[in-house]
């Protein structure tokens, strides 16, 4: 009954969704030819051995001769116990490689997410409060600019400007710098700026248009008639209802950019994070590592959507938690 039960139900659903995704991944993997087996066959043929025998041996070695359901259960156990295999390309366990990537990704993702969540709604509501003034037009122009310009291109331009011509920031990302140091802030400022510019546009637009609806609502007149100051009225009576539809956009935008653009930005700025790890693994045909990073992104998306659903219901008291 009520909120706890609803949250529990959502969590169960998230688990089911992740299971479905893992299962589909398994089916695709099982249906695809395994490059390691092809390689073993080629190797045997080159060395004058029997390719067929080599294939048999390799299949046995990798457990591929087991029945499908046994392999499926093994795979499931592996996924959920975080035994994600060995990355041949990086010569380390996949989980270890991923956590190293995550370490660098988090350094720019955390400030980027926080800045987007703070600045986006604030500027959007401010824009609505000063609708059609030059401030609004400026914010709108910036929003469209950020939304329209490709992140990687913007990144290259800024890198050229500030890194090469002005020499304010290092061109090559230095992994030896301490996380909480001015030097790290300096080298991450531009990537964070590029990502914020890309994600903030949609959030500013949505919060501007949603709050435009609420700023003329009857309850705003009530607030005014109560003697509430305009600042307080916007902060409480407009911001709060705006956050309800905004939470959907917010999570969607952040996830989309996190999964897509972060790769490009990491490649441009040379940050050895999750995005570049995935990219390198794809190029090197390191199946285990590609699978691992795909699962990471999948779980982030599932958890993001779960949070969004919960935040949504907490923010809008009119949503009933029963019978769902």
């Amino acid at each position: 009954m009520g909120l706890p039960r609803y949250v529990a139900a959502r969590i169960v659903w998230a688990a089911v969704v992740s299971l479905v995704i893992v299962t589909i991944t398994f089916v695709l993997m099982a249906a695809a030819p395994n490059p390691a087996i092809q390689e073993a066959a080629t190797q045997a043929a080159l060395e004058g051995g029997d390719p067929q025998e080599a294939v048999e041996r390799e299949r046995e070695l990798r457990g591929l001769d087991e029945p499908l359901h046994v392999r499926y259960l093994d795979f499931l156990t592996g996924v959920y116990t975080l035994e994600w295999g060995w990355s041949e390309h990086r010569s380390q366990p996949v989980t270890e490689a991923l956590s190293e990537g995550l370490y660098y990704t988090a350094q720019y993702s955390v400030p980027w997410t926080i800045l987007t969540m703070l600045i986006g709604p604030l500027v959007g509501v401010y824009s609505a409060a000063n609708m059609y003034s030059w401030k609004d037009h400026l914010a709108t122009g910036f929003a469209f600019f950020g939304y329209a310009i490709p992140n990687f291109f913007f990144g290259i331009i800024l890198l050229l400007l500030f890194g090469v011509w002005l020499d304010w920031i290092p061109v090559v990302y230095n992994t030896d710098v301490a996380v909480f140091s001015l030097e790290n802030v300096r080298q991450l400022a531009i990537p964070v700026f590029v990502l914020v510019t890309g994600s903030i546009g949609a959030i500013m637009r949505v919060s501007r248009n949603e709050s435009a609806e609420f700023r003329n609502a009857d309850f705003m007149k009530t607030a005014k008639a109560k003697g509430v100051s305009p600042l307080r009225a916007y902060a409480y009576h407009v911001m709060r209802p705006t956050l309800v539809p905004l939470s959907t956009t917010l999570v969607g935008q952040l996830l989309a950019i996190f999964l897509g653009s972060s790769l490009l930005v990491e490649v441009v700025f040379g940050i050895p994070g999750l995005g570049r790890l995935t990219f390198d693994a794809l190029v090197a045909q390191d199946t285990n590592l590609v699978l691992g990073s795909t699962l990471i992104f999948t779980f982030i998306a599932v958890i993001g959507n779960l949070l969004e659903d919960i935040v949504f219901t907490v923010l809008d008291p009119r949503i009933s938690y029963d019978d769902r």
Partner: protein
Amino acid sequence: MSEHDRDPTPDAETETRNDEPLLEIEGLRTTFGTDSGTLVAVDGIDVTVRAGETVCLVGESGSGKTVAVESITRLVQSPPGRIEGTVRFKGQDLLSADEATIRSIRGHEIAHVFQNPQNALNHCYTVGWQLVEAIRVHEDVPEAAARARAIDLLDRVGIANASSRFDDYPHEFSGGQKQRIMIAMALVGDPDLLVADEPTTALDVTVQAQILDLFEELKTEFDMAVLFVTHDLGVVAEIADRIVVLYAGKVMERGTVLDIFERPGHPYTRALLECLPGRGNEISGIGGSLPEPTAPPDGCRFAPRCPHAIDACHRDGQPLETEIEPGHSVSCVFYREGRDSSVVSPEGPTGVSSDDADEEARSTDD
């Protein structure tokens, strides 16, 4: 804070009560700049409200009632709105007062109750939170004290189990209950003037009667004056002390309840009263519709729809108000000097009518 703004001595207060009106609106003109020109919603109206009395602003939809009362504490969005004239509340001009002053009066000395209770409360906060906000905006009281007072008020306006419903959200209340909550919210500052803008229009008839009764009780209990806006003459008859009839942003007639209901002077007031059930004209209504607010007619605003209109009605602006008996005045050319007001009476012209009035009465419908 604002306690100091009140009259310094009790004697002065009693005196004020008798002589100086609580609220004095003079020449109030509220216009809106629109793409199709300046829209004149309220065009120079005078209304006075004395302490403790109930004044009703009556008129059909679009006559400027709401804009008029929302101009008092400058609730009208400006721009595009533009409020001119004077509004004196306890001797202080509200239209020239600075923002901080007007904010300390809003919700504290002058409280508002609006037409549509469904949307008047913010759906994201509990009613308790919103009541406490109304209290704490004006007074620096602890949360617990504000909460206790809010519960008392909810209880007073007839919300059952007030303390357990304090943390409920607006959508968990019915329309009538929401309006009761809005009334409770208006009472937090113990206001001297309650402005009620069609507070019963969105409610069904049985609830309407209960809310009106509540207004009557609270008016005495809290010793407030009430400025009541409505288009419902049945409601007016029940609660009003004095009535001001508005049409297209102008005052047509004013007087006591008896003046208006028993001896209506203006053709518009008469037509309006005839729309009441059992008064004859309920099917046909008043022919025509309100004039364009961006291009009001030259003379009397009602002239284009008036069955008695003569040439003089179509020029020289709205006629000056003529006091036909103490406290009862009419803005109609037929009550001006040298005209026969019996022309517009339901019985038809009696006595000696001046020649030109008769002649012009024939050339009405052009």
